[in-house]
């Protein structure tokens, strides 16, 4: 099958039945395409490990960038492998490790701090009227400094799966995979293809560093642009290759974007701030 993820497509040669079912759940409404930017597969290399503690390995072309994982974790491995393909091979855009949420034609970039609740916030906003351009990477145009959409799900981890399922009982969520390197994970679909097909590149209005803290009052602080620049450089996938082009793109983004740090415990409260203060029309 060819997985049509919008900006990029992936020819999946072999995979487990469960991974195919999940891929169909997430990407099944996207139109069929013949082109594939990347050739990928999920395979078991060792004959023994097909039967004893079964393992699966991700391949991009004939190379395997990751160690094998338990067969039951095939779908998360597939999604992470697809992320790897883009981050390791794409140098015609600046790629930042961040989620991107859009409202009123304004994008907010949420750089990825481990344990910051970025994906929970992405899923919550994505299912509450915002558009998730990406949960994992911001794809930024060198010339226009706008961000482009990817047709990908949000990867929820551990407690956030329950939070989102409870709040949005009709949301499309893949079955949980337990004991992965990120704990229990499930992928939630926040966009239909019919909505994705209408999306365009949008300018970046803000960079927000979210930090979930239990029982915390929502507090918003302006962040120094130099520190933000350095943080984004450190968390870019391809800045080291782009050099001057990457520097100019990032400078261009930060010239027009506000930069905040946001501590929160209430998803609705932080959503309200982003709605009213950052993305209001």
């Amino acid at each position, binding site marked *: 099958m060819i997985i049509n993820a919008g900006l990029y497509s992936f*020819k999946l*040669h072999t995979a487990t039945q469960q991974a195919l079912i999940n891929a169909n759940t997430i990407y099944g409404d996207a139109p069929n*395409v*013949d*082109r*594939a*930017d*990347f*050739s990928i597969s999920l395979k078991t290399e060792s004959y023994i490990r097909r039967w004893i503690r079964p393992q699966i390995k991700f391949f991009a*072309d*004939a*190379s395997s960038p990751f160690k094998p994982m338990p067969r039951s974790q095939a779908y998360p491995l597939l999604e992470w492998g697809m992320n790897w393909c883009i981050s390791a*091979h*794409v*140098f*015609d855009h600046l790629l930042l490790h961040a989620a991107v949420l859009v409202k009123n034609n304004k994008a907010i970039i949420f750089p990825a701090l481990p344990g910051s609740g970025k994906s929970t916030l992405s899923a919550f906003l994505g299912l509450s009227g915002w558009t998730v351009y990406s949960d994992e990477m911001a794809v930024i145009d060198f010339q226009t400094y706008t961000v482009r959409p990817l047709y990908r799900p949000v990867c929820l981890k551990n407690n956030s799966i329950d939070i989102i399922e409870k709040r949005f009982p009709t949301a499309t969520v893949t079955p949980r995979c337990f004991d992965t390197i990120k704990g229990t994970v499930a992928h939630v679909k926040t966009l239909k293809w019919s909505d994705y097909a209408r999306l365009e590149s949008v300018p970046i209005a803000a960079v927000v560093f979210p930090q979930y803290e239990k029982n915390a009052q929502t507090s918003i602080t302006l962040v120094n642009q130099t520190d933000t620049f350095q943080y984004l450089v450190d968390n870019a996938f391809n800045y*080291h*290759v*782009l*050099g001057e082009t990457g520097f100019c793109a990032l400078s261009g983004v930060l010239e027009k974007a506000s930069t905040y740090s946001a501590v929160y415990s209430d998803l609705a409260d932080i959503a309200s701030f982003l709605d009213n203060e950052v993305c209001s029309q």
Partner: protein
Amino acid sequence: MRGKMKIAFLADFITGRSHLSEFTDETWSLLLSVLRESKLLAAAYFAYYESDKTSCIPHWVWRHMQSAAKLAERQKKQVLFECTQMSAILEAEGVTPVFLKGAAYALAGTANSQGRFLNDIDVWVKREYLLKAEAALLSAGWKHEEMTEYDDHYYRDLAHELPPFFHPIRGTVLDLHHNLYLPISGKAPDINLYTHASVLCAKGRVFRREAMVLHSVIHLMLNEDVSRGFRDLFDLHLLLSAPDSSELIERTVALAEQDNKLFELGCCFYMLRLFFNTAVPDPFALNLLRGSWQTYLCKHIYPNAVVPDHSALTHGVTKFAKYVVYWRGHILKMPIITFLKHVVVKSCLGIMGLVFGKDSART
């Protein structure tokens, strides 16, 4: 997808001989995957970027070719920086380094240096200066990769290079050579024939062109690992397609004759004509290949062995050819008794590592 693409199709594409307008999206998808795996995607960009055929390449393919070219150019920049640094470190100790393979192509600005991915830097110094050069590099912050005592002995006493170095901050990997092939093999080149009249480029010294070509031939033909063989052959095609190529070819044949490497050169000439239609002489007409075994290797084994390891290109015959080259490469490296001892020791260390953990094999 086994056997879905012929190697000639790949060769035609990277030499600009394909009818691109006939390609479907499916063809482009497969080609993209094959080029990526063969490490030729960036080279393909440079093969087409000034051509009027670019308009026949779909944008979604072209952007990947451009991306690959950006990565290759970034690597080239880094390698040129490392060459400058290394020349300064070694020359301060009175050691003159000569850069080899990818680094040499980048320094000399040869046609094949455009879009060529670089894994490591290979540099040659005179054997008597080897330890001095090692000490200079270590004191300048370079480190050796961790390895077993046996592997360390293998490099220092049997191989043609020291254990690999790496730079802990920049991540660059460096191989410091004193020859181009293992002296214990009895097939190591007479190194003076190669280092003679080396050329000083802006950022480092390299072999003169015919020595550069013949080193590339030796690297391809004497190694057991030919997974990058097709890329190496494409290097040779571009090196030997330069404007002064007829004189270069004559000088390369003369050097191969002096160093007893006529079979290796002849086999490469055969493959260059077969795959790329390169303007090199017919090795049979020049009598470069002698005997039925050499002819068999040249016509049936090497052209199949150098096929990139991609499931669209490989099949039973290529796998058999790669197997033959793998064992030929190992057997050529050292006398058979030394080789058998080497295999036994490596196997024992491997088993010890599996049973008792990797650290047990380090002592």
